[in-house]
């Protein structure tokens, strides 16, 4: 039940930010967990954060062609805010190549954040354009993505906002590989667009 208790604190802290400095407008006693609820193995995110909903794995990813590579690129990037909202790195890790610098950093950062009881909120990614070019047919694609990440905040274990980043547009370059029928992100690099 420790995870659920942490959830209470998080929500309470947030409400405190919007209400008066001395009187939180929201009291934890209103919220009563059902007895049958299983405690989550990862910190419980704010329930209504859309970033905490896992992105849907596109069916197009089942084929090892350029359309599949583009579908995978979209799915992998959409996993990013989910990872930081929930601390659940499993799907992201399953599609990360071991030599991928970006992927390793994401997993390490998310695990450190989760380990400290924190999480992120918001930061949903809107993919405006995704293009993949097949460099080594069936094996290696270069990807190019234009995307906008919504404003994102990091929240610590006490529910305080630690860092805030405003909405940002990026150009992203991807190196995508397909090994034994599995899509792997080989590398990601990004440039902020002005």
């Amino acid at each position, binding site marked *: 039940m420790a995870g659920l208790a942490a959830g209470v604190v998080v929500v309470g802290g947030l409400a405190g930010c919007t209400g008066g400095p001395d009187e939180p407008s929201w009291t934890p006693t209103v919220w009563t967990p059902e007895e049958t609820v299983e405690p989550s193995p990862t910190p419980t995110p704010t329930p209504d954060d859309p970033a905490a909903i896992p992105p849907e794995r596109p069916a197009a990813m089942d084929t090892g062609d350029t359309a599949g590579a583009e579908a995978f690129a979209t799915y992998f*990037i959409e996993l*990013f*805010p989910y990872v*930081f*909202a929930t601390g659940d790195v499993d799907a992201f890790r399953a599609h990360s190549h071991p*030599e*991928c*610098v*970006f992927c*390793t*950093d*994401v997993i390490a*950062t*998310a695990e*450190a*954040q989760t380990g400290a009881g*924190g999480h*992120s*909120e*918001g*930061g949903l*990614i809107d993919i405006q*354009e995704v*293009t993949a*070019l*097949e*460099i*080594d*047919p069936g094996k*290696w694609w*270069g990807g*190019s993505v234009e*995307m906008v*990440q919504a404003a*994102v*905040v*990091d929240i610590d274990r006490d529910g305080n906002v*630690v*860092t*805030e*980043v405003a909405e*940002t547009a*990026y150009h*992203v*370059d*991807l*190196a995508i590989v397909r090994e034994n029928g599995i899509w792997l992100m*080989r*590398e*990601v*690099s*990004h*440039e*902020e667009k002005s």
Partner: protein
Amino acid sequence: MLTGALVIALAAVAAVAPTPPDAAGAFGGRAQGSTVELNAVTAAGKIAESQAVDPALRTREYTRADLCGTEAGLQMNADCSGYAATASPPECEGLDPVPPVWVRERTSPSDPWQGWSLALGWSCPQDALPVFTITDFRRLPITPSVLTIQPPRDEVFVNMPTIVYTNPAVQTFTTTLLGFPVEVEATPTRFTWDFGDGSEPIVTTSPGHPYPDHDIAYPYPYEGTYTITLTTEFTGRYRLAGATTWLPVVGTATTTTTSPPITAVEHRTHLVDQNCIENPDGPWCDS
């Protein structure tokens, strides 16, 4: 190319205001690898691989051509509205950008080719520059350091400093790396002086200096004939000929230089009543 531009941009921002800490959940705050280079190197490798196959037997073919291959007279079936095909050539530090890469395949050598498809957009030659490895570096004809000994004789005195130094000049080479012309520099950075009498070698980053500014010297404690061995460690960097950015070579190369034998002699004090002119056969009179 892109990374360099990004670093400059970040440096400019940092000079104006302190950079706020990146949020964990911000996409731009995460470390990143050399994606553009990885893709360019992969394409270059695949081109080389396919060109090694007899054209009649190839089932895959690559070519480099500008927009949809019209300039090269090729009939590209690809959609020319793709982002990379229409993107303008990048700025490549004064080098000529490399046209897009196209690929086509056929099921077997007797089947007709399928249409060309774009495999890589415009890139810079330095993006696909293969790594100049330590093996490549060690294959360079690096000239061993010249070892100078003072006093400049084949005989030195026991318990008196024998001075050693070398010339730390940077050596430059022009070579090719998988067909790319590259410039390589070898800089001596570490020197190991073995005086050959079983004493522990002296390791320095200084190349030493001649008398009276000498900083590396060794007084032989015993008489004997010794050779001095200088082992020089070189670090390297390389760049595409004409490019401005140097890339480090990971690892070092070494050269060794051995001096001709030198003899350490003991000169004992003698009380004499005649000088060497008066008595040329006296102690320490060279006859």
